[in-house]
């Protein structure tokens, strides 16, 4: 009630003594019966349910909840899952019987992706970036009815922490937007801990229920024990050349910022970068993204001032998050939402992978060589767009198939935001980046035209046969700002 607009305060009703409020009795949020909770939530046909993927391929929560939804005969669900892994193949029957009608995700791998590519999803699949997902939830483009938040630990009032409990996963950056905007928020946990649960990634004021189940996940699928730098000499050669590229840009200096993936070549770049920083006495500003032990060690050694962590990749990074105040949690929105000030916009370098790249520098990390969904943008689009220099590292051939195409199967990241490709047989620069071409010339760093490199690779391996697709569009590759940059077609069996 806005009393400031009242012209005559005598008209304002004042409570009688009998109407005065009583003391608060905190509502019991804890539920132990999944079926009962689903009923209580009033989930109806065509509801929108969301999940995060911090438990990665060890996640039991999505399967547990969705199977209960299926048992209760609810149909037409739109599944808004930040990523889907092979463990979620158990959802295939739910596509077939219409329990799940649409999927919105940023990454999908395993048999569920295969089933969708072969046309089993009755509705559509929308592939988003991590930042794009946060944007679409926060600006209301996607309205979530219930967010089920897998919680390594929660107290009875809904303070959720990713670093306490037995199935820890570290930060819960991908679940923040869901917790802020979903009509109902359920913490799903197997570790109900004493109040208050600190440090909380999501606080009690955003949580409506705490569902306690036997087990939220399989530990070995949640995080790797360690993430390893590649030992493959070709990968190492690419990593070394990537460092030369970074040096030649002139941006590799005091206060630079950096992000790389957790793939073998990307980790090797980080390892070479570390040596370079020590040798040249350079301290970086921040590193961001999914965080590995390699980066937390660099933080400990003072090579970076801070880490922005949206997702912990290994046990070492979870430990670091727990004890190092300069290891900072960030939400997917802070990470890459194009509608707000985001960390990716301050990045100097990002090192990214590619399943395919085309002569216009468009990158596909969504589908594989057989056209089947086996990935997705994750932060690819966001970091490529935000960083000063986005560098794709890839071998020229993958299982004897050339990585450079005339046109990628599905455009995940538009070539207008991709700056450099580093392969074992040459470095290509996007012609749009005349400044980089000039800088590399100055640094005597040899570059090669991407079309020439494509011709070379095809002269060695030949051209891959086109992937056979039907005419049916099964989904869309959405850009981080909400626009659509490609169709996703059904693959012919």
């Amino acid at each position: 009630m806005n009393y400031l607009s009242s012209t005559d305060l005598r008209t304002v009703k004042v409570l009688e003594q009998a109407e005065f409020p009583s003391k608060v009795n905190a509502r019991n949020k804890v539920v132990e019966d999944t079926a009962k909770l689903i009923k209580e939530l009033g989930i109806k046909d065509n509801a929108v349910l969301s999940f995060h993927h911090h438990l990665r391929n060890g996640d039991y929560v999505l399967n547990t909840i969705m199977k209960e939804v299926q048992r209760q005969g609810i149909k037409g669900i739109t599944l808004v899952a930040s990523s889907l892994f092979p463990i979620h193949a158990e959802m295939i029957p739910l596509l077939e019987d219409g329990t799940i009608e649409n999927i919105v995700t940023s990454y999908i791998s395993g048999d569920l992706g295969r089933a969708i590519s072969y046309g089993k999803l009755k509705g559509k699949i929308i592939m988003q970036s991590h930042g794009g997902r946060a944007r679409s939830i926060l600006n209301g483009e996607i309205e979530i009815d219930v967010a089920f938040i897998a919680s390594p630990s929660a107290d009875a009032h809904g303070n959720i922490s990713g670093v306490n409990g037995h199935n820890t996963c570290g930060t819960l950056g991908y679940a923040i937007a869901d917790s802020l905007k979903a009509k109902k928020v359920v913490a799903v946990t197997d570790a109900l801990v004493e109040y208050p649960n600190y440090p909380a990634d999501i606080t009690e004021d955003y949580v409506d229920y705490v569902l306690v189940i036997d087990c939220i996940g399989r530990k070995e699928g949640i995080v790797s024990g360690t993430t390893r730098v590649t030992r493959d000499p070709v990968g190492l050669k690419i990593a070394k050349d990537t460092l030369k590229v970074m040096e030649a840009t002139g941006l590799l200096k005091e206060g630079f910022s950096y992000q790389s993936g957790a793939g073998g070549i990307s980790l090797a770049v980080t390892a070479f970068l570390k040596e370079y920083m020590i040798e040249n006495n350079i301290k970086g500003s921040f590193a961001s993204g999914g965080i590995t032990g390699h980066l937390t060690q660099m933080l400990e050694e003072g090579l970076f001032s801070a880490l922005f962590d949206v997702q912990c990749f290994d046990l070492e990074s979870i430990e670091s998050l727990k004890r190092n105040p300069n290891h900072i949690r960030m939400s997917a929105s802070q990470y890459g939402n194009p509608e707000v000030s985001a960390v990716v916009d301050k990045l100097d370098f990002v090192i990214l992978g590619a399943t395919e790249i085309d002569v216009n520098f468009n990158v596909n990390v969504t589908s594989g060589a057989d056209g089947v969904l086996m990935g997705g943008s994750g932060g690819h689009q966001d970091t490529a767009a935000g960083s000063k220099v986005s560098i794709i590292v890839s071998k020229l051939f993958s299982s004897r198939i050339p990585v450079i195409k005339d046109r990628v199967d599905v455009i995940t990241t538009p070539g207008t935001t991709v700056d450099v490709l580093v392969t074992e047989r040459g470095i290509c620069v996007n012609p749009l980046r005349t400044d980089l071409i000039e800088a590399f010339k100055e640094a005597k760093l040899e570059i090669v035209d991407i079309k020439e490199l494509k011709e070379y690779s095809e002269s060695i391996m030949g051209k891959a046969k086109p992937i056979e697709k039907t005419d049916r569009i099964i989904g869309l590759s959405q850009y981080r700002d909400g626009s659509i940059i490609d169709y996703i077609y059904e693959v012919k069996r």
Partner: protein
Amino acid sequence: MNYRTLLFIPGNNPGMLQSSDILGADGIIIDLEDAVALTEKDAARILVREYLLTFKPEGNYFIRINPLDSPYFYDDLEAIKDLDITGLVLPKASVESMAALEDYLDKNDLDFEVIALIENAMGLETALDIVRASKRIVGLFLGAEDLTLDLGAKRTKESKEIEYARSKIIAAAKAAGIQALDTPFTDTDDLEGLKIDTRNAKDLGMTGKTVISPRHVDIINQVFTPTQKEIDYALRVVEGVKGAKEKGLGAFSLEGKMIDAPIIKRALNVLKTSGDYKEEYDELLE
């Protein structure tokens, strides 16, 4: 060409062959000997031929053939005689096997470079004779694993047991004006140990090192690459020699030190290794 690194690539591994030219080594030794099982010898020969003919890799390619006392020596030579390669590595080198190789190369009019792999006591003690048995030889290569086995010595990381062998190889190589190539460092993960071992070999006089792990290439190249200070000094020596020649002086001093033939030779070697050598320098020692 001074080979700082000669990297072994198994002749039966298509993936490694295909990438061999991008790994930063000054030369590649494709191996038909120890890396290839007896049952794979034919297949490896075919694969190596196909690789070299199809990919036509740039760079210096050597092939390690099987030794004379194996049934594969001549089969290997027949299979590779028409290939566009730099040269051959002769394992278990002896005066006899080198003579047999020379004879074959003469008869087939082949100008391959030859590197002799010294890996037994007899080879070591007759190293200079082996060199003299070949007009194509460009280097002596110490194979310490087999040699220590033959000597009954314990092979250690510190490599004290091969100090004599290293020095002997170096002396024979230097006497003949060819390269002295060190044995590979076999612990692929110990990069610090590799640095120490390579520096030790270089300090004794080795001019390059053979390599079994691509991850070792950069470190060894670095150890054998002259520093900028050494290059700058060598260039000043060369300029000094040129100036002295113009003035008709036999000897001259640079920065308070007399410059004579050994110093000039050392400077020229530095420039050859660093890639700063020019053809016009050939006449400076005349």
